[in-house]
């Protein structure tokens, strides 16, 4: 569970986040939406302890974020940054393997290997295990990075645009897997993204960020109204359902 209270972040004189309150319960998937520069990544990086906020507090599973030691923290929370470097000599397996380091005592053991293998099969990246990351496509790399986070076996998952490079099928699959993890294993998932349709379809809750504040929070059909989309993105959109599934159709600026 993530509890963010009156979070503020400034970079010099620029106020990026201001009085953000957000709770992500265990077992829920929250999609964080907002225009470029709205502060989505900043919020996620604060929760991941990559950035220190200038105001407010973050509690994880009821404890202040800064009380955890580094390894303990990495066993509780996994974070996938927006980009996986391409200038890296690591193979896919070597990257995924890294996810076990917070758990390791004397090197990789039998259970570690099983977790790694099981996750790589589930995300369909076992085929690339021996390939250098630099040789993979953007989408393949993104799934490998997600696999790395899942083998950490975290209770909290922070994802920064995890589907931005995925094809249609892998978008659906990946979102399904992440939602499954939240529902079945009780993970608290906070995910920044730009795809409103995916967010509406898979996000249990939507948080809409604009001007450094949470403008609206809740179920998709309450948050993603033409008016709020107009306000957050400056775009006119139609919102509705087809075959029971939500759609958001941008009409024009």
């Amino acid at each position, binding site marked *: 569970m993530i509890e963010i209270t009156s979070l503020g972040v400034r970079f010099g004189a620029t106020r990026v986040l201001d009085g953000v309150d957000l709770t992500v319960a265990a077992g829920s998937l929250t999609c964080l939406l907002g225009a470029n520069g709205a502060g989505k990544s900043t919020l996620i990086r604060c929760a991941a302890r990559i950035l220190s906020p200038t105001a407010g507090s973050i509690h994880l599973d009821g404890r202040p974020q800064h009380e955890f030691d580094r390894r303990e923290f990495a066993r509780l929370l996994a974070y996938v940054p927006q980009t996986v*470097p391409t200038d890296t000599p690591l193979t896919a397996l070597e990257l995924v393997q890294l996810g076990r380091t917070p758990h390791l005592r004397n090197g990789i053991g039998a259970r570690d290997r099983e977790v790694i293998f099981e996750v790589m099969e589930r995300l369909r990246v076992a085929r690339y295990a021996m390939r250098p990351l630099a040789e993979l496509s953007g989408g393949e790399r993104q799934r490998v990075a997600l696999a790395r986070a899942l083998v950490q076996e975290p209770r909290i998952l922070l994802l920064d645009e995890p589907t931005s490079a995925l094809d249609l099928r892998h978008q659906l699959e990946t979102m399904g897997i992440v939602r499954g993890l939240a529902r079945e294993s009780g993970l608290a998932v906070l995910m920044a993204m730009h795809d409103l349709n995916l967010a509406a379809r898979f996000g249990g809750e939507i948080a809409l960020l604009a001007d450094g504040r949470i403008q609206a929070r809740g179920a998709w059909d309450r948050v993603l109204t033409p008016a709020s989309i107009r306000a957050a993105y400056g775009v006119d959109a139609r919102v509705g359902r087809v075959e029971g599934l939500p759609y958001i159709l941008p009409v024009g600026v």
Partner: protein
Amino acid sequence: MDATVDAPAPPRPGALPPDSPGEDPHRLHARLTARRLLSIASAVALLALTCLLAISLGTNALSLAQTAQILLGGLLSDGLLAEVSTLQEKIVWQLRLPRVAMAVVGGAGLAVTGVMMQGITRNPLVSPFTVGLSPAAAFGASLAILFGAMELAGLGKYLIVAGAFFAALLCAAIVLVIAGLRGVAATTMILAGIGLTYLFSAFTATIQFIATEEELAAIVHWTFGTLNAASWDEVAIAAVLLAIALPVFRADAWAMNAIAAGEETARSLGFDLRRIRLRTAILSVLLTAGIIAFTGVIGFVGLVAPHIARLIIGNDHRFLIPFAMAVGALLLLIADTIGRSLFSPAVVPVGIVVAYVGVPLFIHLILKQRRGAYT
């Protein structure tokens, strides 16, 4: 006959072809580990063999059997050096063996610091020398020579060593403080290092203008990098520094792998990058300064041995660190042996020969390389 030329027969590259989906993870792991351990074992065996060859070669050539016999005899008798009697035993134990040992320790040490410095900066062009160590060491040595170190019979040698060592540390300290202010970022470190490289080169050039002809010759000779003067106490000092740094480096192997995955990923996995980078940089600088203070500038090994090793065994630092050390030791030892055999009794300094040996091998491996590693 120079049997060392064909020495480094690289094992097959560590990266495997695209796998069969669903291979049993335990078998896959066992296969990968076995392959890498085999590579390391082969490199160490090759190194041992090359040591034996290097000891037997020279103006007073010995057969391999004789060499082995003298080595074993020396080890098995109690008195070691005190009891050597024949000329050949003296040659082996007091001349060739310390030289070979210095090549091994120096090569391994320079290689491992190269691996670590490239690791913490995520930059393939970095080595301990990036922070300006070699021109600084040359400046320190030149200063000692200028102030008459050569006229002090016994002490002079150590004055030069101390001058090189402390000048190198001073320069590294300046660069690390500058870089440390910005989190030991690669770019800052490289830029600061380039700046100080020019500065110290200018100092050294100034000294060369002031120096007498004799001093100038000594300065130039020092900068070539040579193992001519290697003695047991020098080997011991370098080995102790290596023994201090190595356990820390090995313990940070996972951290180096994590840094390759990106700054934020490494931090989110629980690695304290600031501390890891600082201790790696400090230990690397100490070890490198401790080696080149005795040998002169033989920096190329620190840059190229890690890459040769990476291309052969892959980037997992748990295996890369020992393997790169073996490669560095082999490279320096082979270069030195060629250097003293080729125009014997004249000795071509190892700092020069190592480029002849290393560059062709390096280019060969680059051409064979799969896409990926730091392109």
